């Protein structure tokens, strides 16, 4: 699998840091499920995953844990994405957008944007600061592209997950403790408050009965559109950072360097 290990005569899948009882597939499933729900349980050393293997849980966090919904936050990020998707698709069919019978207006746009982007903004800002802060860089056990992935994961997890880090990163230094607590504070409470404010704003609105002109939000076309919105807004935001981290690491590994 890993050309670097193959050179050393090691064959088979990457079992480093994995629970031998579950094997590769079981451990991967465990990782995705627990990270996607930010439940905090681990049976795998994420730092030892292959680069793309590590990128998957990282991406789950960066897109706002929309796949399962985080413990304690549930599907609110998904709802906020749905509101953004409803807004644009509502315009596309020529109606003031409505979701579940409620009109989506300026206030809902602001609030759902806060829900979706706060954590991502924290990751972008904090990882940027980290990469030019010597003490933050010094914490990496594996400088280079993998080290960059470690920092990205740490920041993402603190802003929007259980606050864990890849084992290779010593996060117990002042830098990560201080910025991390800021990330935890803003990354959690800003979306939570915003989503509560949105609930209040939506509850006050008149219910509009659905008609043929209303876009059904429980059918395939809307689902496809919602996925596209999540991929473009949620994931592409991190395309450059991921390119410099796990993607380049993966390409390097494949290149056998």
């Amino acid at each position: 699998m890993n050309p670097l290990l193959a050179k050393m005569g090691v064959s088979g899948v990457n079992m480093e840091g994995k629970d031998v009882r579950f094997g590769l597939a079981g451990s991967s499933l465990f990782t995705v499920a627990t990270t996607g729900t930010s439940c905090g349980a681990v049976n795998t050393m994420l730092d030892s995953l292959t680069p793309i293997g590590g990128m998957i849980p990282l991406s789950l966090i960066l897109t706002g844990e929309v796949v399962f919904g985080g413990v304690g936050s549930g599907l609110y990020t998904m709802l906020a994405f749905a509101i953004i998707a409803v807004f644009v698709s509502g315009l596309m069919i020529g109606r003031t957008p409505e979701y579940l019978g409620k009109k989506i207006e300026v206030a809902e746009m602001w609030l759902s944007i806060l829900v979706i982007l706060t954590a991502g903004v924290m990751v972008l800002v904090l990882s940027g600061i980290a990469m030019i802060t010597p003490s933050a860089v010094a914490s990496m056990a594996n400088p280079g592209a993998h080290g960059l992935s470690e920092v990205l994961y740490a920041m993402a997890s603190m802003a929007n997950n259980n606050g864990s880090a890849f084992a290779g990163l010593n996060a117990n230094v002042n830098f990560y403790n201080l910025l991390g607590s800021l990330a935890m504070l803003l990354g959690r409470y800003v979306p939570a408050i915003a989503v509560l404010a949105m609930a209040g704003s939506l509850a006050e609105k008149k219910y509009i009965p659905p008609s043929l002109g209303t876009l059904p939000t429980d059918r395939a076309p809307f689902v496809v559109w919602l996925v596209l919105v999540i991929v473009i807004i949620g994931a592409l935001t991190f395309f450059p950072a991921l390119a410099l981290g796990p993607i380049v690491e993966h390409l390097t590994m494949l290149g056998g360097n």
Partner: protein
Amino acid sequence: MSKHSQQPQSIFDTTLLKGALFDSLKKLDPSTLWRNPVMFCVEIASLITLGTFVLSLSGSNKEPAWFTGTVSIWLWLTVIFSTFAEALAEGRGKARAASLRKSRTDVTAKRLETAEFGLNYTTVGASQLRKDDLILVEANDMIAGDGDVVAGAALVNESAVTGESAPVVRESGGDRSAVTGGTTVIANSIIVRITANPGETFLDRMIGLIEGAKRRKTPNEVALEVLLIALTLVFLLVCANISPLSIYSVKAAGQGTPVSLTILVALFVCLAPTTIAALLPAIGIAGMDRLFQKNVIALSGRAIEAAGDVNVLLLDKTGTITHGNREAVSFVTVGGHNERELAEAALMASVADETPEGRSVVVLAKQKYGLTREVPADAEVVEFNADTRLSGINLENNSYRKGASDSTIAFVKKMGCITIPADLAEVVDKIARGGATPLVVCRDCEILGVINLKDIVKAGIQERFLQLRSMGIRTVMITGDNPLTAAAIAAEAQVDDFLAQAKPEEKLRLIREYQDQGFMVAMTGDGTNDAPALAQADVAVAMNTGTQPAREAANIIDLDSNPTKLLDIVEVGKQILMTRGNLTTFSISNDIAKYFAIIPAALLSIYPQLGVLNVMHLASPFSAILSAVIFNAIIIPMLVPLALKGTKFRPMPAEKLLIHNLFIYGVGGIIAPFVGIKIIDMCIGMFV
């Protein structure tokens, strides 16, 4: 009836283009451009690249000057294309406003103290007129301001406002009393009470609206702008984040150069939703303009967009669903009389009747039996009156009448008739149940039969309603008819519901009921008694021939006074939203390709492995970045025609429409830039 002005202008009219070009440069002024925050950011980005270009000329920036220079030029073009689109949309309105303004110059008015003809007046300028002033307007005078006719009646040429050259009658009292400043009296004199101060008249408001001067952003537009600003901010952070990450990567990899400011700025502009942000103002202005081409004036952009959201349309039966007048379609005999005898009697009863119904009886008699009659010289014409509710004619030895069943029966009884044909009630009832009006005809004391007077439903109206239904819009017919007639016409026209024997308070109640259920209601009206309902409706279209209260209560005015326009207004409202939505989707979908163009190019020197992300096989990092920037810029003028004309509107259910638009603007928006950037890259390859 001929139309002038208000003809749709070509988008590529040369004088318009020249004016727009000049205006687009004026609009670069940051103090006005900040109103479009995304483009304001692009302008700042352009300034930065201008700086890096100067630096590379002086040698303190390592990047080649041709690269930074070209990037800077294209970023500036991106901003200019955007302001150009807005200026072009405004230019079309301004040209129209200028022609309206001509009709407003230096009018003098003849002010009176009391509303009586033949008194002395003082001549004052139109600008000195205030609300409640009385003015005398004689033949060939221009009316100096908006007002109500309080005395007299006159023929008025309103072509300056409506583009309609046929003059209209304006008279005191009734529903035709409103006059508009800037129109001209052709014959007779009227006394007008001014209802608007200078600067607030209908014409002033119209000019302001068409010019876009007083255009306020609609709630939908603001919400979309929020999304665009948020995306812009995020992409700004994405680009800012690349810088430290690349600085670190250079150290770690031991090779390459950190991503330069020029490339970061270029990436930012490419990722920011510039396409939609650039065209957003033009879409709204062009929408108003399209309505104006249909001779409809929306008093706010909000009203047009609300029209796009309408769930319920209240339509007046007369003039909208049916042709205004009922027509005689058949003669039905009773009491064993023969049909020709009935037709003759009906003709005699109608020959002096100048109402459209009366004339249609004459026409039918001629068609069926070739009967023609002149009004006999000795005839005594009995016109319809509210007491007897009959009309007809008295000759020397016979008298003919036609009228409603009960009135005619009362008449023949008075004439001394004892027996009424037994089958009359049945025939009358049958016709009424069919939605038509039975007119019973009698000669002296003998009832001969019944004229079947039908409301003629306009051709093609059923399809129109079917389209509306497929868009989820309910149509409700409002009529003064009795429920039986109303039901029959409603069934024939295929409306969803009807309100029979509608009184103003009934209309108001119906609108409130629908609104309480969460529906948006649109209605048309022209009379003063429509004003409360118009004020209550979400979208209220007043006919320009309507009264001043009706026009004031409305938020859209139809200069042609054609009630079917409501359907066009709904269409334009939807088009505006759809154009915005589609271009937003297109703009965001474009980002995928731009990432694949710029990211490998920007990071290649650090990690050559990232070359595999260069899926388009662009020639060099410089040409890759340049291609993305150029694509991002030229897509704006390429989409200007779409923004001005609006997305083509097809009535279909919401989901089908979404699939259709997602396919074109979503999937198309992902693929188009891959193709476009590759082509531009190949073109650059020829020069570099």
